[in-house]
């Protein structure tokens, strides 16, 4: 039957893996595959035909959801809803709470958020900064091979691999500061996350200051203005590069202050 105005998904083969192993097999080498976590980012792209993939892998029933703790190590499955993070300590909790609204957060997944493709309209991947500040490790698959690597290394190739889970050591302290959104549906225009590890190492990272989340190593010693050495903010529909450049050091200062207070 004909359905007007709907993405012509007849040409798309749909896979609904029931386990992580099946998901890895369905993803294959990732050629012409679109991975659907909750669907909040990808489904509109399909509806408006910005994406017309040969294969779609729906992860909703793959069982790759959940937050596990092993001592101080926290592992979060790729299909864990963003909403499941909001009560976690800073920077993850407040960063997750700043994502869209409760309906989107409950449907959108951590993996989908981290792997969101670049958009000319807005930075996507609200959670990238928080996980980078936590020094997270990404476990991912392609061509049937599973590897673990720092999230920093994974992010540039997030379109070519299937993210399975992210893990990190619980920090001694965390902090988050972000721009309030003019509307709940917008992506995070700019935010800064910080974490101090048990050994005293401070990591800072930003979401919205580049094409994906980036570390801010120049500011980690305490000079907030130096964060601008690490990123090249750009213009998009949410904010101008000029505005982002003015606000970034402010957010960095707030995060550094919050980390100091919790020392």
């Amino acid at each position: 039957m004909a359905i007007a105005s709907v993405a012509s998904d007849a040409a798309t083969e749909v896979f609904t893996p029931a386990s992580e192993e099946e998901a890895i097999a369905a993803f294959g080498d990732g050629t012409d595959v679109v991975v659907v976590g909750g669907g909040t980012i990808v489904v509109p792209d399909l509806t408006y035909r910005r994406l017309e993939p040969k294969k779609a892998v729906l992860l909703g029933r793959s069982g790759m959801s959940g937050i596990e703790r092993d001592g101080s190590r926290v592992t979060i499955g790729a299909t864990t809803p963003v909403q499941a993070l909001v009560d976690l300590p800073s920077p993850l909790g407040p960063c997750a709470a700043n994502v869209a609204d409760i309906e989107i957060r409950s449907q959108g997944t951590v993996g989908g958020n981290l792997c969101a493709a670049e958009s000319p309209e807005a930075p996507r991947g609200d959670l990238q900064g928080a996980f980078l500040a936590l020094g997270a490790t990404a476990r991912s698959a392609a061509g049937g091979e599973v590897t673990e690597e720092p999230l920093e290394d994974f992010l540039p190739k997030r379109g070519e691999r299937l993210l399975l889970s992210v893990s990190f050591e619980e920090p001694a302290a965390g902090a988050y500061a972000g721009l309030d959104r003019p509307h709940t549906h917008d992506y995070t225009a700019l935010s800064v996350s910080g974490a101090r590890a048990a050994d005293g190492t401070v990591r800072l990272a930003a979401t919205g200051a580049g094409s994906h989340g980036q570390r801010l190593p120049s500011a980690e010693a305490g000079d907030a203005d130096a964060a601008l050495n690490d990123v090249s903010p750009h213009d998009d529909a949410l904010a101008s590069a000029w505005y982002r450049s003015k606000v970034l050091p402010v957010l960095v200062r707030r995060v550094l202050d919050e980390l100091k207070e919790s020392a």
Partner: protein
Amino acid sequence: MNLTVNGVSHEVGSSELTPLLDVLRLEVGVTGPKAGCHQGGCGACTVLIDGEPRRSCLLPAGYAEGTAITTVEGIGSPEDLAPIQQAFVHYYAAQCGFCTSGMMLAAQAYLDRGGSGDPEAIQHALGGHVCRCTGYSKIIDAVAAAARGDSFDLTTTAVGKHTTMSNGGAA
């Protein structure tokens, strides 16, 4: 695929990837969920999936298989309005009405979670919904009243009177 909408089972031919909104409106024929922006930005298409509010335009229909899907048609009837529907009538919380079904379903889920009449908590629960008539105050008043458990005599409202008059006028 088999979908259960307002307690009725429907065999549908759409792909699991089709947004639930399109399956509901175009294949099942349930039009309470509205197609506003079709990209998750407005909340007019919100339905309840096992009691949880979800944007049906963002949800692949396959994810709704095996769940209880509730649209605005399923929470009450014209003869027996749900408390949230009564509150919307009493407070004139619908203007053009396009956002109303999504608003009411998000509110219903909020009430089912034991939500209070606190306006800030209500704003948070309805944060994903836009009313382009900008009738937010009345919507929040209505949800707060329903949360308090207020009861309403709808015969004293314009909508109640209109219903009576149009019935009388037809005779």
